[in-house]
């Protein structure tokens, strides 16, 4: 009741007095939580930028070993990219369904997101295994060390995202779409979209420019 009463006022105030611009009272919990999580994502991006820098510096140091052009299979990379992009899409639709209080629709979209994310990981793991098998493992050259660190770190993030998704779906089923669960879901979808942004950098710098 009180929440609704507080809420009606700010919509009437002029934009310069809106929340987030110093007026209209404190921001909602949802906005504050998303902002905090956004800061975490940006710090994660800073960490990835160090790995990107390391790869950019080491990409030519193949130590007479295999180069990117010999190792990369662009058809698989394209499939991986599409898997991740579509999972970002279904994740967004899932978050939206949850906000609009459609739990069954949310579960369907969450399942799609999980399957697409898992497909991405399977393709990536198969590629890694194939490379290690033909003697192009991370210890072969500086280029491959940087490659496995950067792409492997992204893969680890995707893995932890999938684990978190299972945990969230369990929460939705056990507790329903209550406010705290919705906020966690919002943070998770921010994380998942951010991983897709990192992947745009990976496929551009590593696969397309290294081919």
């Amino acid at each position, binding site marked *: *009741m009180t*929440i*609704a009463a507080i*809420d*009606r006022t700010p*919509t*009437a105030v002029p*934009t310069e007095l*809106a*929340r*987030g*611009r110093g007026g209209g009272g404190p*921001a*909602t*919990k*949802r*906005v504050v939580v*998303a*902002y905090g999580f*956004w*800061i975490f994502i*940006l*710090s994660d*991006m*800073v960490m990835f*930028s*160090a790995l990107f*820098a*390391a790869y*950019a*510096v080491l990409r030519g140091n193949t130590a007479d070993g295999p180069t990117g052009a010999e190792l990369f299979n*662009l058809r698989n990379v*394209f499939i991986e*990219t*599409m898997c991740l*992009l*579509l999972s*970002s*899409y279904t994740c*967004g*639709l899932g*978050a*939206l369904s949850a*906000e609009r*209080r459609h739990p069954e629709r949310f579960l369907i979209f969450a399942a799609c997101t999980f399957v697409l994310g898992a497909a991405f990981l399977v393709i990536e793991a198969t590629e890694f295994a194939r490379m290690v098998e033909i003697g192009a493992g991370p210890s072969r050259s500086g280029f491959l060390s940087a490659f496995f660190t950067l792409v492997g770190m992204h893969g680890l993030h995707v893995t932890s995202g999938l684990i978190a998704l299972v945990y969230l779906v369990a929460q939705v089923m056990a507790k329903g779409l*209550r*406010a705290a669960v*919705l906020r966690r879901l919002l943070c998770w979808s*921010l994380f998942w*979209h*951010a991983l*897709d*942004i990192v992947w*745009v*950098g990976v*496929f*551009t710098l590593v696969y*397309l*420019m290294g*081919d």
Partner: protein
Amino acid sequence: MTHTHEHVFDDRTPGVEEHEPTASYLSYTVGLGLAILATIASFVVSQTELLWPPGIPVGLIVLAFAQIGVHLVFFLHLGSGPDSTNNILALAFGVLIVFLIITGSVWIIANLNSNMMPMSVH
């Protein structure tokens, strides 16, 4: 405008936390379409001579930035609204740090490389 907002808030289940109805299924679909276009363009540009070959890396970087922009706007809903102001400022700082780390490393190491004593190839 005010009336629609009030209607939205009145419509909500009592006790449920309020939120801004910013996103829609349509905006995600538009974002997906644009992102797929940018992805396909990147792969085509890198594999064909559609662009002047020495310009391909620049073209790829431009396409990557365009796609990141699409993701930020349509998937992460960064906009010009009052609730986005702080997020955009934080993003600007993050972009500055990322830029400094990447270009700084590449620049410094390229310098070191070109100043290195010639080594015999074994």
